[in-house]
């Protein structure tokens, strides 16, 4: 089933068109990667899905974005809070809050008034377990999260995002600040998470897209050039430009 569908999605930053009539459909409980050269609009596209572009002045969006068949572009503010509960995001640079590990994880719970105080500990534990941090951090729950290693921070950010039980996880180059080993571990984690979540990952790293995703989209200058099963795209790309890019001949 399609979890996210866009119909003729276009986005302008002031006079500059960053997304051009994008049509795609992301499938439920799969990992979809979005690849393309720097500046092609990957992050912009991702940030449409949780409407983070709303923060930027002068942004104009046209078209439709359906999540679970509801158009998220014509919702009012209270829907925005609900939308962001449903659609979690992990950023390129790990950005844990300058609070304790525990407070980081229950942040979303507090914001959405999700559970009773007594249940919080349980959720903290489950969230940390699902990102395989529990054993490392169970005795350090009340230490400041800024003291963790980069990889731990990024795991914590993922744990923080899934603590509110979203449906969709958006990841914008989640491994680009990490070393190769940590990258592989996060990818392993994504494979486990896809049983429960629909994951969209933006990456610069072609191997990562090939390794970790089920479907892949290739973007160029704001356009979606090709969208297919990852295996298909990487073995038999239909568009010449995709082929050039994935074989490293682009730019």
């Amino acid at each position, binding site marked *: 089933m399609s979890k996210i569908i866009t119909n003729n999605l276009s986005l302008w930053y002031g006079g500059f068109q960053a997304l051009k009539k994008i049509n795609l459909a992301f499938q439920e409980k799969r990992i979809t990667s979005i690849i393309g050269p720097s500046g092609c609009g990957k992050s912009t596209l991702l940030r449409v899905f949780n409407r983070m572009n709303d923060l930027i002045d002068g942004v104009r969006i046209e078209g439709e974005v359906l999540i679970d068949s509801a158009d998220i572009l014509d919702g009012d503010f209270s829907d925005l809070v609900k939308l962001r*509960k449903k659609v*979690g995001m992990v950023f390129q*640079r790990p950005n844990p*809050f*300058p609070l304790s590990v525990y407070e980081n994880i229950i942040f979303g719970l507090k*914001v959405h008034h999700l559970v009773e105080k007594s249940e919080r500990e349980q959720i903290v534990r489950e969230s940390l377990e699902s990102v395989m941090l529990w054993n490392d951090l169970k005795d350090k729950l009340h230490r400041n999260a800024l003291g963790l290693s980069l990889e731990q921070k990024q795991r914590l950010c993922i744990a923080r*995002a899934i603590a509110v039980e979203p449906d969709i996880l958006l990841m914008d180059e989640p491994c680009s600040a990490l070393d190769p080993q940590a990258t592989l571990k996060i990818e392993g984690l994504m494979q486990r998470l896809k049983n429960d979540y629909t994951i969209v990952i933006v990456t610069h790293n072609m191997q990562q897209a090939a390794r970790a995703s089920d479907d892949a989209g290739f973007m160029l200058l704001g356009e979606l050039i090709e969208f297919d099963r990852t295996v298909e795209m990487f073995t038999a790309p239909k568009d010449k430009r995709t082929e050039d890019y994935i074989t490293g001949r682009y730019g």
Partner: protein
Amino acid sequence: MKLRLLKEFIIEKLIFLSGIASILFVILIFTFLLKEGISFFKEIGLKDFIGGKYWYPISEPERFGILPLILGSLLVTLGAIIIAVPLSIACAFYISEVVQGKAKDILKSGIEMLAAIPSVVLGFIGIVTLVPWMKKVLNLPTGLTALSGSIMLGLMAMPTIISISEDAINAVPKAYKEGALALGATRWQAMYRVVIYAALPGIIAASMLGIGRVIGETMAVMMLSGNAAVIPSTLLEPVRTLTATIAAEMGEAVHGGLHYYSLFAIGIILFVITFMINVIADIFLHRNKK
């Protein structure tokens, strides 16, 4: 060519001299203060001075206990902190998060200009507006109370606190706010649940600096807080502060007498207090930079 070298030389030396001079002056002032004050401590022990409950410098026998003055200063300052810090933080958030563009610049420089109003003027405005109003509204025997002093001091501390806190809030990485919003927080929740913690060292430093500024403040407090050297029990009584005591009594103290030296001793106590506050503020500011 030679002339230019000479000019450079002279300018360089002048700058050097004025730098040295300013340090020298501070040292001189401090040694003078110490010299005049120390002889007093020899006469009356430090313990009796700080712990003494009665300040009767010209009665017979004279008593030199500054506890009421210290408590007066403390009470007025504490009141000022309670009034100024929360308001200033709210104001700083308002300026950094709500106001946009040109209005922001105007507001910011306007607030910084407030810091330049001389305290006598503020004291005077307080006497003709705040004091009668307090007397009437709270139904007090006099409007010259610790609270009046606190309110005016709070107003005086606010520009410093607002301006530096706003810088601290602005310096918070955007990633924190984005992270909070992406989790479904409203702008307001992002601010008070996350951004404020990231800006906290700066905000604390700002508050300390603002308070350091007002704790040494004299004119406005002397004019507004009633000047009764008794240990206060509420904010609604007249109090007397350390600074106001020096200012009010220096003129009438017999030069070279014990009373005269006691005022210098108060000066030393004040110096130590403000110095400590500044050092603490500095520590927080530097921690913030890292």
